[in-house]
């Protein structure tokens, strides 16, 4: 399942350059881990109709979109953490090429 092509594909999806990593070791380790976690296929839980009796009832907890804080309250604090900021903006490389 995890070969070199797959590793490169995953690294691209995750936006991480892995040219400096030991891809051999990475694939080997990931294969070993995936082999281990595939144990889940043996679970007695699979293949049965879902009882769903004691399933916790999840619901989205949303608050009303109201009471905004004053504009600009946190701007400085947030811009101070940005590696490249200019005026009131965070600066990035050209996005539309």
């Amino acid at each position, binding site marked *: 399942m*995890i070969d070199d092509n*797959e*590793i490169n594909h*995953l*690294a691209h*999806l*995750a*936006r*991480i*350059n*892995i*040219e*400096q*990593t030991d891809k051999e070791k*990475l694939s080997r*380790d*990931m294969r*070993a*881990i*995936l082999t*281990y*976690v*595939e*144990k*889940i*296929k*043996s*679970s*007695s*839980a*699979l293949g049965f109709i*879902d*009882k769903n009796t*004691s*399933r*916790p009832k999840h619901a989205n*907890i949303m*608050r009303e979109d109201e009471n905004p804080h004053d504009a600009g309250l*946190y701007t400085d*604090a*947030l811009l*101070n*953490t*940005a*590696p*490249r900021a200019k005026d009131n903006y*965070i600066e*990035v*490389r*050209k*996005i539309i*090429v």
Partner: protein
Amino acid sequence: MSASLPKTIKEARDTLSSGRVSPEEIISETKRAAKEKNPDINAYLEIFNPEQSSNENGPLGNIPIAVKDNILIKGKHAGAASKILENYVAPYDATVTRKLRDAGAVFIGRTNMDEFAMGSSTENSAFGVTKNPLDMSRVPGGSSGGSAAALLIGGALGAIGSDTGGSIRQPASFCGLVGLKPTYGAVSRFGLIAMASSLDQIGSITKTVDDAEIMFGVLRGRDSLDATSQEGIPEKDTPSYKKRIGIPRALLEEEGIEKDVKDVFEKTVLEMKRQGYEIVDIELPNAHLALSVYYIIMPAEASSNLARFDGIRFGFHADGETVLDEYLKTRAGGFGEEALRRILLGTFVLSSGYYDAYYKTAMTIRNTIRDEFSEAFEKVSAIITPTTPTPAFKIGEKTKDPLAMYYSDILTVPANITGVPALSVPSGFVTRDNVALPLGLQIMAPHFHEDILFSIGRDVESIT
């Protein structure tokens, strides 16, 4: 700490209120011990300048507390021990930070950890290994190893950490301390650098169960800034069979749990029977799969949570020619090996073609394990196991084999998978290379029944 100074939070509160010891003595002695021992142990990434308690009469008035590097303190560096957040200064307090400060706690410093809480030994920090003060050739456990070590060197009276798969309980076990992972939702995660949002929980490392209860009282509560937090009313009252406890025997038969660890556990069980506990065998048919489920769900959530580290809004930034180039270089330059591995694993199990077989299946089994725990709690009020399959292992022993390292969590992950609260209490010792190493006994209780943990924990604690 010198002989006359208090060794626990409870003792400190008593001696402070009686005036026998002054706040200055406790805090300055704590800082002195921290500064003296830290170069050898590396428990702290940073020791703060002298701080004043903002509430001397609070439940933690003038109590020195250590804070794990993934919990934000406004104005201080926070980085989850990762290079990718090397210069990040927190612009706000975590809710737990605010609560501790309001209770009067004095923060001594921020403690070392495995990068992004990914690890079971504190060997994955970008800023060096933390050594176990009980045996410096061994690990203190992880990922909250720094917090545990800080207590042992006398550099704090209590510590907070985070536990996603055992990261509080396992270091507590390896260091002879009490570690509490509260019920999922009992403590706000606002201001905790997220690893796996359905598994993470902030908790405490302390010397005693009483101290854990004091800390929990301060940390707990519903927070409007964390939609997953709750006030913590248990669904059911403490049952009438509260002295009946279950042991999931099949789980203890898993390979890798060392024989003398099991022997020590059985000895404690015998003592608990003498204390009047009825101990029965229970079945948790899918609990042995909890580790597999965890190593699918956790990397999936972590890969999503760590997507924010792109060098744009905060943290480490590597220059590139395009936005994509900068993402690729920043993340390559900032993440350590374990973080990279887990991000890629998570990306894999969520990717098209594999999502059903891995992530969706894992979620189904997760629900099943949760149901099995609920069924067990119809018959017993708590479930006990050893906390860890081994005592503290040697530095470097498991770093070459990720699976061997992951295996340390086999007994702790079920509590994160199900969300139940769990407490590790020091219980017995084993010998390795002529050194006595502590072990922990883990107690698990139904959701929001930390009271059961403290009650049983105190009994286990009294067994010498």
